[in-house]
């Protein structure tokens, strides 16, 4: 393949993004501290691709998704979306961008207003952005609900009347309602059974082809990530550890953290699972208030050397075309 000819186009450019949360510690909040939720991360998202984002709970995935869409103001760094520098824009100027870039939240309950019927909740983005005449809205919503495997007869019910997985699908349908170009999908299918997961993944891939959608797909299920992503970013404690094409990352992982993550994936086979000795990562898990010096993974890395603890942690370096890793030793 000639890389010059098929240069993918960058839709979203993330440069040196930082998000810190000031918090108060101690029983009476007497001590100030800072949560280093994301610390200087940079990556590109290409138009039309699915970029998977994986990593341990609390490593900063949702915060990254929120910051990308300016739902959290980043502490520093630059985010550019289709040539627009979002980090330099006022809330009012961002409005047209919000139609083009949507998010499916991790927690479906907090997204849906408990006092709004499903119909109104789904119509909201259509109405806010004036996308359709009022009388065409029900048909559009019926189509969206059908896409996610739900019946239009559900539309007049309230969020609490649904099962967990049904609510999650309503959120997916709602995010699609304004015909966005880019969607941050934060664990969008984690509460669904495998058959419906398969249906939704197929749907998302179909929509992507049809409308050239771009996804940032946050998930912890590596089999799903492998299935849907073109490229994958691995995060650990607010930093990027590895970025690579899907196939390269799964077949040829370089970073010790990625390797540990892959080794822990269970298989749907009782014989295999019973005989497997799991490599469970040991050591203290993420503490974003007082992150370790040097390579953030060093307290749990079985290959850690003294040099890994030195103040300036390792940078992402190119180990193969399109493959970056933040460990200089592998």
């Amino acid at each position: 393949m000639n890389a010059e000819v098929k240069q993918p186009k960058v839709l979203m450019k993330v440069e040196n993004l930082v998000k810190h949360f000031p918090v108060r510690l101690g029983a009476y909040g007497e001590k100030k501290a800072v949560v280093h939720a994301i610390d200087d991360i940079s990556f590109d998202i290409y138009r039309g691709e699915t970029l998977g984002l994986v990593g341990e709970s609390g490593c900063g995935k949702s915060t990254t998704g929120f910051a990308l869409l300016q739902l959290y103001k980043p502490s520093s760094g630059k985010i550019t979306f289709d040539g627009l520098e979002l980090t330099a824009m006022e809330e009012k100027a961002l409005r047209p961008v919000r139609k083009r870039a949507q998010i499916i939240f991790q927690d479906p309950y907090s997204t849906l207003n408990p006092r709004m019927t499903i119909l109104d909740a789904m119509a909201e983005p259509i109405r806010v952005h004036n996308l359709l005449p009022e009388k065409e809205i029900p048909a559009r919503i019926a189509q969206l609900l059908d896409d996610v495997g739900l019946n239009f007869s559900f539309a007049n019910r309230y969020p609490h009347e649904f099962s967990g997985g049904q609510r999650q699908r309503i959120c997916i349908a709602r995010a699609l309602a304004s015909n966005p170009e880019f969607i941050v999908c934060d664990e969008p299918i984690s509460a669904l059974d495998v058959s419906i997961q398969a249906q939704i993944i197929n749907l998302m891939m179909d929509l992507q082809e049809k409308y050239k959608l771009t996804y940032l797909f946050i998930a912890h299920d590596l089999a799903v990530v492998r299935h849907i992503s073109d490229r994958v970013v691995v995060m650990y404690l607010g930093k990027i550890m590895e970025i690579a094409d899907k196939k390269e990352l799964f077949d040829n992982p370089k970073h010790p953290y990625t390797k540990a993550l892959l080794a822990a994936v269970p298989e749907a086979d009782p014989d295999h699972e019973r005989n497997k000795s799991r490599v469970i990562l040991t050591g203290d898990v993420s503490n974003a208030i007082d992150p370790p010096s040097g390579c953030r993974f060093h307290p749990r890395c079985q290959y850690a050397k003294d040099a890994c603890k030195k103040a300036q942690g390792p940078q992402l370096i190119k180990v193969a075309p399109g493959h970056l890793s933040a460990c200089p030793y592998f």
Partner: protein
Amino acid sequence: MSALLEVKDLETQFKVRAGKLHAVNGVSFSLKQGEMLGVVGESGCGKSVTMMSLIRLLPPSASITNGSVMFEGVDLVKANKEQINAVRGSKIGMIFQDPMTSLNPFVKIGVQLSEGLMYHKSMRKKDAYDRCAQYLDMVGISNSRHRLEEYPHQLSGGMRQRVMIAMALVSEPKIVIADEPTTALDVTIQAQIVDLVKGLREKLDTSIIWITHDLSLLAGMVDRIMVMYAGCVVEEANLRDLYKDPRHPYTIGLLNSIPRLKNNENRRLRSIPGQPPNLLQKPASCPFASRCAFKTERCDRENPGLESVPGDDGASGHRIACWADTRGRI
């Protein structure tokens, strides 16, 4: 050995605008002391409502219209308020599917976690807090002392889920009902939670009901699996039989939809075509009939009961609700 929990012919309905919604339609199962039972089934099939019915944590629009739930000589369906309160939380602990609905956003984590210990076990505040911090450590939340002083929104999605897990386990109940407890957790922490629960079972002989869509996770964990569809139990078998010799057409479809980490190159996943039935009518024929490849004329007339699988004398406890003999026909 006799059962610790015996559920018979349980039926639960919701009053909705369009009439009655039949969420649970005659569920029977038993749970032995120290046993671990997995529950799977399509989104909306009644898994959560079944478990909420057991401890009668249902919304006012719901009613249990039939059946019994025997626990320690008491029928929980008929038990009075005091009897139920004595069981809930301290003897039967529940990990809810939606952490944000069960965590109070305005109350610090520590207060919510320690409540049960102080109320049911009359522990002093300091001891209760010590124990809670210890449980947060066990579910892999670092800096646990500090976390006790935080509010739910300051935690990541996966941390909130682990707080829920700690909350159910901290009072060391006889039965733990876990409703999709690890959906927001990555594999390494999942493995840690599974080990924790297994350890608890070893130490205290706790019985566990684990609802999940993640068949890979169950494969390394439970003794028996119950498959639900449209408010009915459609298959029940010990772990190995269910994976190696599934008999109900729905179970077969479910196992075929799992995305695998290996041999994952074909783009489309297999899903089960069609939608589950509208539960406004109680199923009179087989509820899976409209989606079933094995359907015969009888399936549209009569709803099959749960019986031993063809070719089995009943000793293995492998049962299905299906008229067909699916052996060798997949």
